């Protein structure tokens, strides 16, 4: 199966997964991935990346890459402004498409991607890797089986120390993450999209939102000339309120400003029969409280290490070992799921996020931003499939 990659930032971990896939999934996958081509604008950087990982050839323009007939799968790790055109073009040329999150800059772009790709009949997937953790899958099972009763409250948080020091440093240059024209939104797209998708995946649909956004560092040095500054036109942080279709209410809090936490994606869910909490900084653990414990005086949250082979995905990896599932393994699982769907020409849903899921997340992000502008609650009214 020929792989063509655009972008080599998060593309590095994708590449790592393609190369490791057969070690973990040789029993269930029919095909072997072959790294055909990688595309990037910086000639030197892309060629040394290709050399290191063993890509056969390099391109500097994605149009050439999507025309390469040896490529069966486009792995789109480019910035969001390149997602729509490249992904749809590839699908029209008969390639399955895995596209990094956020699916697009706006909901309308994302919907167009979904419609155009769906029309070609090609398999499509949005790269929400947070779905592929034994702990998040276990949490979803607890909610869906009714073990936690009716879900009443959700507290969702994603704070991240971007670049190892936090974006609070005003001297960090104005990279594409700070530019609406390329990124669509700020922290909401980069971090919040993970959180929104995870909530939809684990708890259910979000029906309306309201929010506030803030830009703390208004301008940053230009990367090409650090003596000059450019305006930041996306949010550094958002705080919002949510209503779920199932009746629960909740809050969402996202920021790339904190200097304290590293990868603090935390989800607390409260139900009438029990609760759970999950934090991505301890990705193998799920804390679970069950209200029906007989001995109430000794009741409390239990920490479940989701590392035994009985937990989803663990059997493919290293069961029963300390910290044996994390960031890296989630991509291997995600990509294995995608490849397996491609082999069978089946949708990646419900375990994987399709382009339609990517669209719904983009819509929620857009409505949160719109609410921050007009100060009103916004209902989520998606276009049909």
């Amino acid at each position, binding site marked *: 199966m020929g792989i063509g990659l655009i972008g080599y930032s998060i593309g590095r971990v994708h590449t790592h997964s393609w190369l490791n896939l057969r070690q973990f999934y040789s029993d269930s996958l029919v095909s072997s991935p072959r790294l055909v081509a990688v595309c990037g604008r910086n000639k030197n950087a892309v060629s040394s990346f290709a050399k290191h990982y063993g890509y056969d050839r390099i391109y500097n323009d994605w149009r050439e890459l999507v025309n390469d007939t040896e490529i069966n799968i486009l792995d789109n790790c480019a910035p969001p402004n390149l997602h729509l055109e490249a992904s749809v073009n590839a699908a029209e040329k008969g390639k399955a498409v895995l596209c990094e999150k956020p699916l697009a800059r706006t909901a309308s772009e994302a919907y167009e991607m979904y419609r155009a790709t769906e029309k070609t009949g090609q398999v499509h997937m949005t790269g929400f890797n947070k779905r592929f953790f034994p702990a998040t899958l276990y949490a979803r099972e607890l909610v869906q089986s009714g073990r936690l009763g009716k879900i009443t409250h959700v507290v969702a948080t994603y704070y991240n120390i971007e670049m190892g020091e936090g974006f609070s440093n005003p001297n960090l240059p104005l990279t594409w993450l700070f530019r609406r024209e390329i990124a669509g939104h700020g922290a909401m797209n980069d971090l919040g999209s993970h959180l929104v998708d995870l909530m939809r995946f684990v708890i259910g649909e979000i029906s309306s939102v309201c929010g506030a956004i803030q830009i703390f560092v208004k301008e940053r040095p230009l990367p090409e000339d650090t003596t000059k500054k450019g305006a930041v036109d996306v949010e550094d942080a958002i705080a919002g309120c949510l209503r779920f279709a199932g009746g629960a209410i909740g809050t969402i809090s996202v920021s790339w400003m904190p200097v304290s*936490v590293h990868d603090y994606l935390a989800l607390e869910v409260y139900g009438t029969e029990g609760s759970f909490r999950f934090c991505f900084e301890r990705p193998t653990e799920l804390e679970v409280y069950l209200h029906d414990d007989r001995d109430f005086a000794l009741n409390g949250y239990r920490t479940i290490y989701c590392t*035994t082979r009985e937990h989803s995905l663990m059997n493919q990896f290293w069961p*029963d070992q300390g910290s044996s599932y*994390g960031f890296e393994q989630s991509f291997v699982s995600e990509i294995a799921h995608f490849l397996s769907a491609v082999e069978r020409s089946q949708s990646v849903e419900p375990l994987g996020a399709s382009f339609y899921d990517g669209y719904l997340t983009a819509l929620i992000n857009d409505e949160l931003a719109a609410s921050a502008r007009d100060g009103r609650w916004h209902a989520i009214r998606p276009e049909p499939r």
Partner: protein
Amino acid sequence: MSWQLPPVMGDGMRFVLNPDRSRFILSNKIGVGLIGYGIGRVHAHAWKNIPLFYDSSIVPKLVGFSARDPKKTMEMKESFDFEKSYSDWQNLVRDPAVQIIDNCSPPKLHAESCTTAAEAGKAVLCEKPLARSADEAYEMYRAAKRSNIVAMSGFTVRFAPAVMLAKNLIESGRLGKIFSIRCCYMNIESGYNGYLDPNYPLHWHFDRDIAGHGAISDLGSHALDMASFLLGEVTEVCGATQTIVHERPLVTDPSRMGKVTVDDVAVASLKFKSGALGTIDASWMASGKKDYFYFEVHGSEGSVRFNFERLTELEVYLKDGSEFNGYKNVIVTSKNHPNMDKFWADQGGGFGWNHLFVVELKHFLDWVVAGEQVDSLDPTFRDGYINSLLIDSIVESSRSEKWVKIEPKM
């Protein structure tokens, strides 16, 4: 110690230039032969991942694999693209394309296969525990020295960024004078019930002839190495070992029972040359523990504590006299933390169990290329011998009910 790479027969070159420009486009390859598929699976994974994480002019190549079970041998060969497989280790060790023997077999096979490999001039990496007894381990250490090869003991946990940070804090004096260490390794080995279940079959872990000892050897070896690594030489031990489940169903015929000949639970007290004291707990009958390898070190100026179940964290207490004093929970995943820069910095679970092996094997590869030990903190066969001596002495102390002096042979 200097060490020469063994000549590669056939083409007369030490390293073969990658002829097919296959997956990893790097110039020089060194042949790895792997024995055993238990922990061997993560070793194979790590060898394949070294070139993905590190820029190195010399790249490991999975040449041969050997194990007794033909089905598992084929699975390993398929999943990891080994060029060849063998049904016995002797042929693997003899293969001229193999320059490194990575020994992941059960302890019973360690001494003979490592010694044979050493005599054939191969570099040897051997899983922990180094051997079934201190005597066997000593012979292995001597054989490696005689043959002038590089030989590493697989004490993998040393390579965790959080452990290295703890070691740095101790060595730099930030924790002051070290008074004590408490170190335990407790789990149930496998699944939800694991070894707690008296019907768990009589795996080789329970057989003295294959394993040497039980929990004190499988888990305690890690704890004892950590204690020695962090606090230095141990001079005396006193301990107790206990078998809880005395017989278990045979693997080959579960209707029949076989005798458990090793310990399920072990405890020990340690005296260090520095004057510090320590305790060790090892158990594979620890309900509720998945992989609880824990240590805490207390010094005059501060303390650290570490839990393998939360591998990326180190709790650090530094006395600073302020009203905010307390343990800090340091997430050890930044680029500037030890061993972290090549991996996935600042990501949740960005360094995991499998990465420990990638670091370990890369360090060993550096030894092989240099012909001698490169990083003085890496575990040697001598460390493996002393580790086995500590285990034997704890078991002896349990019998004699007396403190046992640790007097390693040179």
